[in-house]
């Protein structure tokens, strides 16, 4: 009766792939205006902590917590973005990296609110909450041939899948809109863009905020997928990991970071059979990428070739 091929393990890995995909998209958005932000781990932690505190201490329902997490992260994005966007290039990268560490240290030391280094446990988990409320409504997952844990993992996966699809769809459409073209103009030449009448500061802050909001959203989902968070989850390792998604997959096309996040999250799991050596393989792969394809795995010419001639949106970027 039970659908045996539906393995919660595979769904679990797929769920983390999707969360990382959202993070990959979030770094792409800021990169689309030519800014390198390493603060995504910080925004992610803001989103995660906001929803964790609201749902565990103040009885907020989970969707409200997730929305609040994204909004607070976006507000933090505006607050950080306006002063720091006067910096460019490596200076911005360092400033945002510093921001991420500041946020983490605040979470470590603000014990009354965040529990300090011990973190926040027993955060409601999406799948378990959904199953509990459906059971109250008289629905049993067994009636559609699923075991409890299959249903939990499947619902988490589907929620994340829908969220990720929406995010990718939104930013894909954005790319060929007025805003997306303004982003591209700012990225290619900021002064020329300004001369052409584009409010560069506005668009840069907008992109930065969008990236922060998406990171916060991913962080909130992360909190409700693992049900436990601590400041140690949001160190600069996480920021670098997110950056690697973009570097590995390619930062010039939306699908680059998406693909990079998917591959680099799934890879350590696929390599479980060589347990002790899997991170060696991972490292070698990264080095090989830098040698043979420094622009990343996916770039606009490749997408155009794959998509035939119709890719007009990518075509304009080809000029870069």
């Amino acid at each position: 009766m039970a659908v045996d091929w539906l393995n919660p393990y595979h769904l679990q890995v797929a769920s983390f792939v999707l969360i990382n995909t959202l993070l990959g998209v979030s770094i792409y958005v800021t990169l689309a205006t030519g800014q390198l932000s390493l603060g995504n781990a910080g925004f992610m932690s803001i989103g995660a902590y906001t929803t964790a505190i609201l749902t565990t201490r103040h009885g907020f329902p989970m969707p409200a917590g997730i929305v609040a997490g994204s909004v607070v992260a976006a507000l933090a994005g505006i607050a950080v973005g306006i002063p720091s966007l006067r910096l460019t290039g490596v200076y911005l990268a360092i400033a945002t990296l510093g921001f991420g560490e500041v946020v983490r240290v605040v979470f470590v030391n603000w014990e009354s609110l965040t529990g300090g280094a011990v973190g926040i446990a027993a955060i409601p988990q999406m799948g378990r909450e959904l199953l509990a409320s459906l059971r109250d409504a008289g629905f049993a997952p067994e009636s559609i041939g699923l075991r409890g844990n299959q249903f939990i993992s499947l619902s988490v996966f589907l929620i994340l899948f829908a969220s990720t699809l929406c995010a990718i769809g939104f930013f894909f459409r954005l790319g060929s809109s007025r805003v997306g073209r303004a982003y591209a103009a700012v990225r290619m030449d900021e002064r020329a863009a300004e001369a052409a009448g584009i409010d560069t500061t506005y668009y840069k802050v907008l992109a930065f905020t969008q990236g922060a909001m998406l990171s916060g959203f991913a962080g909130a989902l992360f909190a409700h997928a693992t049900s436990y968070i601590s400041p140690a989850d949001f160190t600069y390792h996480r920021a670098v990991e997110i950056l690697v998604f973009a570097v590995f997959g390619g930062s010039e096309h939306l699908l680059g970071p998406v693909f990079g996040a998917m591959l680099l999250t799934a890879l350590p799991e696929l390599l479980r059979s060589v347990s002790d050596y899997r991170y060696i393989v991972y490292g070698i792969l990264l080095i090989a990428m830098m040698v043979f394809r420094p622009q990343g795995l996916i770039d606009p010419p490749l997408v155009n070739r794959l998509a035939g001639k119709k890719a007009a949106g990518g075509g304009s970027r080809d000029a870069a």
Partner: protein
Amino acid sequence: MNGKIRLAGLVFAFVFAPVLLGATGYAEKGKGPEIHAKIGVISILTGPGAAYGEAITNGFKLAQEEMNARAGLRIDLVIEDSSGKQEQALAAAQKLINSDQVVAILGPTLSTEMKVVGPEANASGVPIMGTSTTAQGITQIGKFVFRNSLPEALAIPASIGKAVRKYNLRKVALLYGNDDVFTKSGYDTMKKVSEEMKLAILTTETFQKGQADYKAQLTKIKNLAPDAIFCSALYEEGAVILSQARKMGIAVPFVGGNGFNSPKVIEIAKGAADGLVVATPWFGEKDDPKVKAFVAKYEKRYGKKPDQFAAQAYDGLTLMAEGLKKAGKADRAALRDALAGIRNFHGVLGTFSFDEERDVVMEPAVLIIRNGKFQLFR
């Protein structure tokens, strides 16, 4: 002459072989059907913290060999890496529970990992036992969650209690790492115990992971002249703190938590380590045949003395085997009930019981470093 003996031996062998075979066959039948159990292990095999994972998996493997050498039980271990990350630990647990269909899980290594993995295993009805998770609130996750590692909440009161009685302490200074779950929860216990014992806390100083210079904190502590310093640190930082404190002329005893309990402290701090008091579930020099046999076997196999983590892992799998034997079959729910009922189990850590909340009941040994060696603190 020689040939005759050989012939006699041959005849003897032919005559007695069926008898002997029959006897062993009978013995096996007498013990009932063989229990075949697949047990999952989540451990840190790569990345920082892999040293803990190595000791732990060594302990498991040694115990596995021993258990499998006996009749009636066969244990297969499926070992998965977590790299010390919660997501990886959770994925590994899902794999073990759903793909490998293990009957129980040993691990994961860190308390933070357990807080993510525990609820999942509990919801799936798989018994899970931490052998190195010492933070508070682990077994309270659910009725399938066990641990056999001495929690800080038991270790620290023991070491502080003995030190207070012995040195007649009245005023103390607290020093802890505030960005690590382990040292932070150790500090919480230290503070609670100090307040309960009505000790005057002169100051509370903090440091961060990987810090190299503790002179600012130590100077402040020195000027306040406490009777002792309670320090919640892992050995990496703790050993450096000890050595800097002694160099600054702070001669008072140090009382540490579980993380301080490592031979590495002596290696790094050398003579400065003298006077450190720790409570530990594991004392390798104990005059107990079980402990001696374990230490000898481990040393022969891996070329070094077992530490606390190896010993806890060894006892962890032995406890699982005990539970399986009591349950009589490799069944998740039956194993859980059998494990929860274990009392007064005699392992290399000493006499061990699970309490009502599946947490540890045992008497920790309090040790002090004297002349560069861990000794029982009396």
